[in-house]
């Protein structure tokens, strides 16, 4: 990884939130710059070199969406995470249409933010077109849509395969439930019940059941992490 992959621009006008964001990102190995206004965000952002930019939707001078559009117009290709207190789907759609890559509604957990930033940072890496994904003794054939563990086939429904693929692609990173809903089901929806847990539980039984070690780990209160023991 080059240095730019660790630099993050946080655009946030509330000093305490900005400080918390900067702290939590810094403690995870990122180098964080904070811009407190739209103007500052534009000058810093266009100067470039950021792996990910997070923009608050409501800034004192310029609307976050406008900042984002100007950054894009200025040739900034870094993935942008919009953070907003406006939770309605319309705003989400508007934010994404204006050039945002992901959307997070305030208030959020820092683990969720970190997971999103990691996922976005990875997206800006050159994605290698693989046809087989391997983690530990698990292999996923993306062409034949089959999975096996230790050479033994695992029978998965299409949606279960997609879920496993998303977990495997984010190997070693935390994936939140909202991210699963968004990327596996394409839903912006807040289920009141534990349907995602139950769904992951079913996949887990198929993947980890009667195996030497588990691959799918639960991160309490947040989501899941897929990793093989070292």
């Amino acid at each position, binding site marked *: 990884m080059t240095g730019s992959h660790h630099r993050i621009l946080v655009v946030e006008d509330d000093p305490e939130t900005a400080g918390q964001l900067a702290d939590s990102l810094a403690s995870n190995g990122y180098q964080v710059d904070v811009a407190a206004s739209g103007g500052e965000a534009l000058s810093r952002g266009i100067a470039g070199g950021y792996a990910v930019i997070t923009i608050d939707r409501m800034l004192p001078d310029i609307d976050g969406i406008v900042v984002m559009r100007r950054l894009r117009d200025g040739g900034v290709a870094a993935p942008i995470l919009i953070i907003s207190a406006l*939770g309605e789907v*319309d705003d989400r759609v508007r934010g994404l249409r204006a050039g945002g890559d992901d959307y997070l509604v305030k208030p959020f957990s820092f683990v969720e933010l970190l997971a999103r930033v990691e996922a976005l940072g990875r997206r800006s890496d050159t994605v290698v077109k693989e046809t087989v994904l391997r983690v530990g003794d698990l292999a996923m054939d993306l062409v034949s849509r089959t999975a096996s563990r230790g050479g033994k086939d695992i029978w998965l429904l299409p949606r279960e395969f997609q879920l496993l693929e998303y977990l495997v692609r984010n190997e070693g990173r935390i994936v939140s439930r909202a991210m699963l809903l968004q990327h596996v089901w394409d*839903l912006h*929806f807040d289920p*009141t*019940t534990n*349907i995602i847990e*139950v769904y992951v*539980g079913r996949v887990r039984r198929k993947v980890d059941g009667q195996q030497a070690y588990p691959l799918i780990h639960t991160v309490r*209160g947040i989501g899941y992490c897929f990793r093989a023991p070292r």
Partner: protein
Amino acid sequence: MLLAKTLTSSTFKLALIAIGTFGLIVSGILGYVYLSTSSYVRGRSDRAIKSECSDLLAANDRIGRDGLAALIKQRIADGNWADHVYLLVDPSLAPLAGNLQAWPSTITTDAGWTEFRVPPSSAGMDQPLIRAMLEGLPNGDRLLVGRDIGDLDSFTRQIKMAVFISVVLIFSLAGVASVLITRRTVGRIESINATSRAIMLSGLDKRIPLRGTRDEWDRVAENLNLMLDRIELLMSEVKQVSDNVAHDLRTPLTRMRGRLEKAYHTQRSGGSDQSLIGDTIADLDAVLRIFASLTRIAQIEAHTRKGAFRKVDLVEIVGKVVELYDAAAEQDGTCLTVAGDRAVFAVGDSDLIFDAIANLVDNAIKHGRAGGDVVVTSEVVDGRPVISIADSGPGIPPDEREQVFKRFYRLEHSRYAPGNGLGLSLVAAVARLHGARIEMLDNSPGLKVKVWFSAPTT
């Protein structure tokens, strides 16, 4: 006070305009009657004078000055010509015959029509008004033939008087009537105004009094009262909701506060701190979720999303929901199945419809019987797309079926099940936005919720 309001009211101004127009027309008609009557009467008398005059002229031609004088005397003596005035004078204006003392001094013309007053023959008598025709005779004599038109004059004066009195009467009666009518109108409006002011001052429990006349004012008052009933109901619902919000938020907030307070007064220990913080975060999340649901419902109810409506495939949405809840149903031992037609389309917002159906399926699994069935059907009935969700649980008593759509409403037996009582409110809000009707039926046993969308226009 009321009089001032009466005089400034728009009804009164309208009445004045109506009175003015009507009065002018009536005055015109009466004026015409007067003019035509008086000209008819005058014309008759003029014709009589003229024919008498030409009779005398012919007599003069025939029998000469003395004959004419004799004829005039004879006419004067005859009672039939009692109201006639005759005077024949020689060129020096000395009277030759007639019942006038002298040639009237007011006459300036030589021939044609004239009017004059005769000096009274005795004191105290009226000066009769004479209308007369003058003629010059070939021998230089001058003849005056006239009539006392005093009667005619008083007749036309009476007509004039009658016309004037009727016009005045019409105007004043109409004025009084319009004041009375306006006053009545203003009175009704005042009673509505008074009620409005009372409502603004004290509260929504006041109603506009009805007079039981079933007129348009009573109808206005009735409708306003109905509107007030509706507003009062909404207000009480809002109050109910805010009470519920306060309760539902206060409970976790109190728990959090107590927990933090206890932690503040005790020694730090890593393990208990962690569980305290974890519990507090979970409670905070519950609070935030309630907020999010409430704002979402409010946003849906603001109807701003109709712009995003397009044709959506209900079968596809149902499929997605069922797939998402499949694992949850399996865990509960519930058999979740899809049924119905292959192509069912509606017009709407697919995200919101998904939310609504997901909530209904969620409820069906949660409140249905463990090990029972949940069937989600999408079909077209009478051209209308319908989605029904049927479970085999305890159902909802008929008298509570309306209530469950209220915010924070929880059925007695589900009070301690997870959930915040906002799911069906969201369903109701989505249905309202889509103009869809929700029907709750008995699935004996269980509940069947049918969502009737409106037929998509192609």
